[in-house]
């Protein structure tokens, strides 16, 4: 990445295991790059202030909100989105648990929730209810009241 300021940049990212190289305007948000330029529409937008977490993805293994990063900031990074979870079409234990526990209704917050919860489980494989609530604080759901989401993540950690 060049130290000379420019309005357009060619960036290279690894996304869900695939290498992508594309020119983007410096002002483009990472979430719009993922949705509009790459067509990965599983990552959602629910607010314009960085509060809702519907756009949560993993950048170099950490959960981040892709509406608070510019695409150019991700140059050289490894990205994982919700489409990268069940890469072989086989649902992860967490995805399965979300369905089993009715942890989703409209499903709009779900990709972000799954990415936050996946990051939690990778750091802390058997989280308590309190751990889960703390880890999901940056993800708003307007359908479920979080009850079943929390239950689903705890259960996934227990292998249930």
């Amino acid at each position, binding site marked *: 990445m060049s130290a000379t300021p420019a309005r357009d940049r060619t960036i290279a990212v690894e996304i869900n295991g695939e290498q992508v190289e594309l020119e983007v305007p410096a002002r483009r948000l990472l979430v719009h790059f993922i949705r509009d330029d790459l067509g990965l529409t599983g990552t959602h937008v629910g607010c314009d202030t960085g509060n809702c977490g519907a756009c949560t993805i993993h950048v170099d293994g950490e959960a981040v909100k892709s509406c608070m990063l510019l695409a150019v900031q991700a140059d050289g990074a490894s990205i994982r989105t919700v489409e990268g979870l069940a890469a072989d079409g086989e649902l992860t234990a967490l995805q399965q648990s979300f369905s089993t526990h009715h942890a989703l209704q*409209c499903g709009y917050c779900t990709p972000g929730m799954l990415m936050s919860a996946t990051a939690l489980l990778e750091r802390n494989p058997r989280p308590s209810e309190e751990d889960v609530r703390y880890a999901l604080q940056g993800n708003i759901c307007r359908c479920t009241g979080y*009850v079943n989401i929390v239950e689903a993540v705890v259960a996934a950690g227990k292998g249930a």
Partner: protein
Amino acid sequence: MTEAPTITTEQQETTLQKGWIGQSIPRKEDKRLVQGQGTFFDDVRRHGMGYVHFVRSPYAHARIVSIDVTAALELEGVYGTITGDEVAIHTDPFFEMSVEPGGNIKDYALAVGRVRHMGEPVAAVCAATRELARDAAELIEVEYEPLPVLVDGEEALKDEVVLHDDAGSNVVWQGVFDWGDWEQAKAEADHVVKIDRLHFHRFSSTPLECAGALVEYDKGTGEWTIHCNHQMPGVGAIWMAPALRTGIDKLRFVTQDIGGAFGNKICLHPQFVVLCLLARKLGRPVQWTEWRTDQHTANAHGNERTFLDIEVAVKADGEMTGFSVRAIDDCGAFPRYEPLGCIIWAQVTPGCYAWRNIRVDFTQVCTNKSPVSPNRGYSRMQHLWLTERIVDIVATGLGLDPVEVRKRNYVKAEQMPYETPNGCVYDSGDYARCLDIALDLVGYDSLEERRRDAESRGKLLGFGIGSTLDSGTNNFGQSQLLNPDLQFSGNNEAATVKLDIFGEVVVTLGTVPQGQGHETTAAQVVADIIGCSPEQVNVRRGHDTWFNSSAGFSGTYASQFAFTGLGAVKGAAELLRDEMIQLAAAVLQAEPAQIELADGQARLKDNPEAAIPFMGLGAIVNANNAFLPPEFNPTLNHRYVCRPHFGVVDTEAKTGQLTLTYATQVHACVVEVDPDTGLTEIVDYAAVDDCGVRIHPQIVEGQVHGATAHAIGAALHENFVYDEEGTLLTANFYDYHVPHAMDIPPLKTGAIESPSPVAPLGAKGMGEGGGGGIHCICSAIQDALRSGGHAVYVYDSCNPSHRVWEMMQGSTAEVSR
């Protein structure tokens, strides 16, 4: 408590036979949604599409002096613009439902000559990218001449500032409802409790997905296709088509997955008309995604209502015989779906109580704030909050026990079905039993002990109850109680069920689900009727005006899917079942009565070996039908319209069956208030639901959780607050705090089933919830403050820490006496 309650989250015995119905099977929607494979409107792409950005008013009230789009049009990549002047030429004002004066209001898709609320769209621009569209919007120069601003509903009544010159008054609708004999009830009362003022605040459910659409125009046919998240397309088209000077059949609404709606996606017609005009003008598909700040400032707030001069007639033994109130409903800058809110509350006129004498003087006004739209619990929630505030304030004022006073005044289970003073019929329910279960879940017996424990930690403990109703299946005839000239009545919903060539069972719905799991529950009902597994039933996603079944009132609103939606599915599946049986009988050379449908087969009851799989039936009719006799012409494709029966409303007495089913929710909670800061913490919470037969108990419980979370948010944080200039101070999620996972306490739930005698499956709609959490938290905060020696009544539905603290400083003396 008088009797030991049975705590249960499992189903109670019901008269209906259950197969798939009643089971919490995995939802059919989930597999795609957990993989990010849902298709929401913003995921739809078309070649050559342009992105639309609205130019919005920074003023709450101003005259538009001029709009100059020249600089925007010169920007490379800009496809075109549209302004209010063009809208006024190419469209007619939207149809208004009110009588005069509100009926004279002129509401266009863009502001014409004047803006009436902050964020009102005055122009729109379409460009090659989202970013460019916003750049261009900034180049559109609008000159405004500010006008005096009106932000208070009571102030609006003075008509010193008038929003709509065509109406000549800020009043949209006014009327007095007088049922029973209030004057006599008051004269015969032992106590008349007076409450000066209660205020139900503005908030909304703020679905996580904002509104939007991609609109395509077919020049050759003059038809528009609207890929969107409108939740009530049938009614949306009734507004849009006449405004666009076209026929209803020229508008095709397509929805797929929708990221929540809660009523907030009913009034999208102004923006959608702009998109239709732009698509036609520019000859390309146009796409608009609403941003959160736009959603908050200019789309859909819930109705704000102020209750004044409340009087309650109470007998010496605690029996309440009725009440009188003056209500002022503030609908913001334009009525849109209003004045329906001026009557919808009457579905629950006495709340859960056997009050026979009720007088409501109801006025709705316009102010320079965002327009309202239906919002989860629409209009009934406000009124039910009033009834619960009345009960708690009366109980506190007269020293009555809040549990006993409720049980004394509740409509009793043995009175069901119960006709209210205004002719509505509560179909079934057992409120006292729900209350007992809720009390048990929160450990009501140990309350005083916990109060002392909280005191020892410097906290004020409060206990509260919220008993509420979720009335479902709207009778549009109630609109005639507002305006006898309106040509709306009844309700309807459609479904089609067919058996396809390889034995696929395919269902299309008119409904517009936004998370309620219609694909799953419809499949359960069909599976039970035609004898297969829900997995074999393919329920098409979403709504499609042209290619799915739909009816005039199609949509998902008013807690009615369990009645009208599943009623239509049931009707269509039964038609298909009957025909499959006839077909099998013809093939097997038996009588229809000898045939049964089970395990995906039609077979002889006495000889199950003689069976035709569904695939065989589908293939015969669709591909191999030469041998069928000419007089027998099965289609295996059946549409059914569920048309609930309400009878006709009495426009003189303002009575009638305004709705058909009444789900009950009784909430109870324990809070701790920090007397130093006014912060409220919910330490125990239970919600008990009775919606009759539960098709899918897990989905029902999920709706209870969700409605409770909305109520907790509204009761403690969520508030659309305006300053005197009409600027919305909580215009996004930064200042408008919606609860996150750490804000919501663990929720306990309980359920009983009192099957509805009127609903096709005994199941009542229940998604809206009735705001039980708001009622119960207000009740608990009042109890907490009183236990701390503060002689106050909770007078507002929103109680963030500053208001609770202010109450403790004694600033509510004028509120109640």
